[in-house]
């Protein structure tokens, strides 16, 4: 049971780091760092939700921003139209989750039968539809200019919000870990590995894909809502392809199909983003930091398709293997 052992090790490290992070704001006061960490937690949730699709079910969606945007707008519009109270925060979350679930169900039902490239194309187009929709429906969204809103005082407190997002991320992490170890999760992996075979075992793969995309959509919408709260501002960019690309970059650079990879990817990207933009003073090229990520991403897909986590486990496995090989060589040689 080596695989599950490695899994447990990852989870234990994750839990330990999370505990450290809980204590962190109490001992070290740095507003900037707090904000960055909050961002990381939010995007970690978003990236993990994407990993369910890409890493576990083998679905390439280019429209994940759809759900992120739905969550963000639900929250923002509730905060703007109603009082900035916790009750409405919850209501907004529920509405966002509900809407995402419906949208992902309908989209899934229509499109998940399609082949990979058609599906990717269609989701890209649908997300663009939401983007344009948000731009056109100005009475509700105020278009690309967007709008600011107030949030409950409790959430205005940076440390509170930091802790909430951290706890949510940890919860999502463990919930997903459980999810992928469940019989249902195993079927998802089977679908990614070999769709036809999964079907011939008697599993109805369309149901599985739809449920997976609903779960991913719901989590993405929660991430979107948190994102809106953290900015206290929303505009159409939450529906843009860049948001989907963020999720792609994070999961792929971190390592697809590992959950923890999404978290690591989120951390790496947010931190380097922060660091690279701080270098703008040195050279203007750092304003275009996304280029570095784009290139890094392409190289990762080409040469390390399993990302940071994948590369690390491969290294470890190789070391172990070489040991074994040496022994067996001696035996046969």
């Amino acid at each position, binding site marked *: 049971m080596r695989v599950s052992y490695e899994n447990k090790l990852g989870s234990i490290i994750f839990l330990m780091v999370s505990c450290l992070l809980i204590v962190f704001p109490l001992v070290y006061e740095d507003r900037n760092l707090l904000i960055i960490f909050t961002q990381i937690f939010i995007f970690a949730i978003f990236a993990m939700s994407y990993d369910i699709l890409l890493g576990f079910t083998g679905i390439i969606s280019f429209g994940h921003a759809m759900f992120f945007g739905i969550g963000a707008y639900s929250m923002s519009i509730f905060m703007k139209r109603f009082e900035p109270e916790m009750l409405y925060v919850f209501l907004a979350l529920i509405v966002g989750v509900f809407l995402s679930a419906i949208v992902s169900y309908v989209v899934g039902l229509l499109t998940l039968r399609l082949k990979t490239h058609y599906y990717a194309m269609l989701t890209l187009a649908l997300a663009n539809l939401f983007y344009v929709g948000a731009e056109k429906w100005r009475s509700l969204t105020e278009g690309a200019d967007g709008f600011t809103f107030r949030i409950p005082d409790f959430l205005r407190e940076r440390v509170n919000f930091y802790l909430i997002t951290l706890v949510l991320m940890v919860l999502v992490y463990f919930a997903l870990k459980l999810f992928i170890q469940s019989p*249902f999760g195993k079927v998802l992996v089977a679908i990614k590995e070999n769709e036809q075979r999964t079907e011939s*075992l008697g599993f109805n793969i369309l149901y599985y894909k739809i449920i997976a995309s609903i779960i991913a959509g719901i989590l993405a919408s929660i991430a979107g809502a948190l994102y809106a709260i953290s900015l206290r501002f929303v505009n159409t960019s939450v529906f843009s392809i860049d948001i989907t690309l963020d999720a792609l970059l994070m999961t792929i650079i971190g390592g697809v199909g590992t959950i923890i990879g999404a978290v690591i990817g989120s951390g790496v990207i947010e931190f380097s983003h922060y660091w690279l933009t701080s270098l703008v003073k040195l050279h203007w090229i750092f304003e275009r930091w996304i280029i570095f990520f784009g290139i890094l991403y392409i190289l990762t897909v080409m040469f390390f398709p399993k990302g940071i986590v994948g590369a690390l486990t491969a290294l470890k496995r190789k070391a172990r293997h070489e040991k074994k090989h040496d022994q067996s060589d001696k035996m046969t040689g």
Partner: protein
Amino acid sequence: MTSIIETKNLGISFGNHKAVDQVNFAIDEHQFTSIIGPNGAGKTTLFNLLSGQLKATNGDIFFCGKNITKCSTVERTRLGMGRSFQLTNVFPNLTTLENVRLAVQAQKKIYFQMLKSVFSYKDHSEIAKTILKTTLLVNKDDVLAKNLSHGDKRKLELAMLLALDTKLLLLDEPTAGMSVEDVPAIYEVIERIKEEKTKTILLIEHKMDMIMNLSDRIMVLFNGKLLADGAPKEIIANETVQSAYLGGLYDEYTA
């Protein structure tokens, strides 16, 4: 005695080409039947019709007396028809045990459970391990399927089929593409399954010695039609079969 699987005038056409044409047969429970015939005779197509990968253009298929012609692959599997594929068809990045466990899970009808770890289904692992023993895959539980040898992959394929615990097994060339040394092991596995006398087996194969030893009955397909059907000895003696194999006018030179 009711037969477990029966076809009535079963056929499929691709354009003008009748790949399977008016095939009628009925197979009794626990019988071991082999299907032989030259390339392009329609053997795999017939399997695809039986297992639901292809839809028949005409005729009907009955499974345990029930007309299943319109049922999907999934439904047929759930009714009790399992099939192996000519190409190796396993989950490459899962371990051997996980591969089989998925099939056990399907058999136990655990479809949408998402809040319980698979490790809490101890019985599944137990069943899976027993099957790995039957299929001569002991000590390979932890190996990723893609790292198995070709022969072991074919065994894994059979193991997954067994795990589904279906009444009927459709085996499509279990020894295809195998190095000569690997063949006896597969033969042994199939023989073991046969000896348990709990399954009805339909086999497509080319290795004649294997077919002769295992089969209760042989069906010969030629150009989509059922050319002959009977006990192995009858088939060997059958002149039409001989000439079908050697291409048309075999007698021209023997006469």
